[in-house]
């Protein structure tokens, strides 16, 4: 019962969200909403506006018009820092980690972000809560063994995991995953899928992904973007059987 009520609450909503780059309309009047605990995927051909949509939500880009509502609060145009502090985290498609820090330090610096910034009188080693939390995150992304390695020396696959680890360590309410399996081998892809499936339902996830198998397996709802607008939205089965989606995106491939 309580779960059902929680599921019903809306965590993120966009109203007529539009972003224009000069003459190009990257996202065109998108009305989108996602409920708490959902596993929502956004698919669409290259240039459909998926990345732009993400960047607007996390505050890297300001929309030309329209609004973004997060937990009943208008966050349109807030700085990226403020949006992150409200509880939206992102794992970028191209891993964006702290190269000269170790894996452990990468996660810890993200973990401490909620509690302290300008604390320069205590030792970071004395903050047990950050350390415990970081070990916990490292465990869940499977990088405990590499904790003392510099992020610069990680393989692409491990860096993708670390990218997700950094996002998780900030303890978000909403997690945006931008192609978490891009450029990974089948084994590594499998690992990432298992990893994100294990993430608790308290965390809402929006996934952008090209691998249809991953999308179909992972999501409860799928939104198809096409030329900046929403082409279709529905459950994996509905999307699979949608004629228009198959024509423009799935290319007639049976999935």
């Amino acid at each position, binding site marked *: 019962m309580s779960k059902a009520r929680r599921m019903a609450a809306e965590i993120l909503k966009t109203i007529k969200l539009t972003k224009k780059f000069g003459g190009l309309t990257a996202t065109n009047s998108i009305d989108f909403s996602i409920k708490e605990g959902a596993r929502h995927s956004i698919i669409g051909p290259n240039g459909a506006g998926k990345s732009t949509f993400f960047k607007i939500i996390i505050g890297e880009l300001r929309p030309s018009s329209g609004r973004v509502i997060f937990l009943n609060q208008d966050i349109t145009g807030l700085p990226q820092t403020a949006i992150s502090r409200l509880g939206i985290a992102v794992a970028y498609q191209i891993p964006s980690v702290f190269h000269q820090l170790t894996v452990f330090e990468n996660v810890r*610096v993200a973990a401490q972000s909620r509690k302290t910034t300008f604390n320069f009188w205590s030792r970071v080693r004395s903050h047990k809560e950050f350390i415990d939390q970081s070990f916990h995150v490292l465990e869940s992304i499977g990088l405990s063994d590499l904790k003392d390695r510099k992020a610069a020396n990680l393989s692409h696959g491990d860096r993708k995991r670390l990218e997700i680890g950094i996002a998780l360590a900030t303890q978000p309410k909403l997690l945006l995953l931008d192609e978490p399996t891009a450029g990974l081998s089948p084994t590594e892809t499998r690992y990432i899928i298992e990893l994100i499936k294990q993430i608790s339902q308290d965390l809402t996830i929006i996934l952008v992904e090209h691998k249809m198998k991953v999308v179909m397996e992972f999501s409860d709802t799928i939104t198809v973007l096409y030329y900046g607008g929403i082409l279709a939205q529905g459950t994996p089965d509905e999307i699979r059987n949608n004629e228009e989606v198959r024509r423009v995106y799935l290319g007639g491939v049976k999935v």
Partner: protein
Amino acid sequence: MINKASIKEAMGKGSSGGGDLQEPMRNQSIWQKLAVLVSGKSLFFIFAFFVIFPFIVPYKALATQIIIWGLFALGYNVCLGYAGMLSFGHAAFFGIGAYTTGIILIRLWGNLWFSLFSGFASALVLAFILGFLSIKRRGIYFGMLTLAFAQLVYFIGFQWVDLTGGDNGLRSIPAVPLSFFGFSIDIYSPLRFYFFVLIFVGLSLLMLNLLLESPFGHVLQAVRENDRRAKSCGYETSSVRWLAFIISGGISGLAGGLYALYLHFVGIESLYWTTSGQVVMMTLLGGMGTFIGPFIGAGVFLFLEDVLSRLTTNWMIFLGVIFVLCVLFFPTGIWGTIKDHAMRKEKG
């Protein structure tokens, strides 16, 4: 967030090994021990070296000069090495620290502690203002802004002859004794003055060591490594950089104040851009972003200057060539290269 079993496992690990990450020395090879030593954070080693340092250089005044410039470079390194901001304007902080200390001693109160503190505080305030004006820009724009503002400060110093002595510099700073709980000690023998400076260098090293190991120190390095990621972790990256700039400016001002006491004189060139250039060179030479590198850079620079300037009046040419070669072949600086080498050995 994740399943409970993994939490428990992680917690177990956290409490056994995580409480103190500087794991005990057992099971470490000789190379690992060396790596810890040369990681430059072994403060005891550094202090011990500084105590014998004046006895191993040709003359004691050179040792004093080296640790004063080393302190300046240490402060500068907070900005360049740890915050990743290439400032060309640190002469302003060094200079204002020197002038404030000197002017207070001449006109206001012959107290060394107070005058040095004023020099430090004036640099903090100036860094607060210049930081606010420059920090929004990154990279080369930041460098140009700091250069422009520092030149502005230079021209004010140059024109305000009544206060600064203008082109002639600030002359005859009195050699007041050091008062200490009612005692007063004359500190102007070369060796005594060295140890007097060493007090401040030691305190700065301690403070900076604490700072770099603090949560803020790690945020600072995260901001340097990846501003975008730091922002999306929720850090106010411009405030972080601003604070680093202020701390960096304050230490530079303290070094300036000590330099004024050392020379009993402040030249107008202390505010000039060449001073900024010199501290950049020292920091790069020693190894930016390493804890002790700036001191090594200052030491090598001033030692070479001392030796070469006795041989030829064109010593700058040779120093320049050495600097270029260092940047080409040892881009991480002298200490950075040693450190990398030790790290590689450690990994085997």
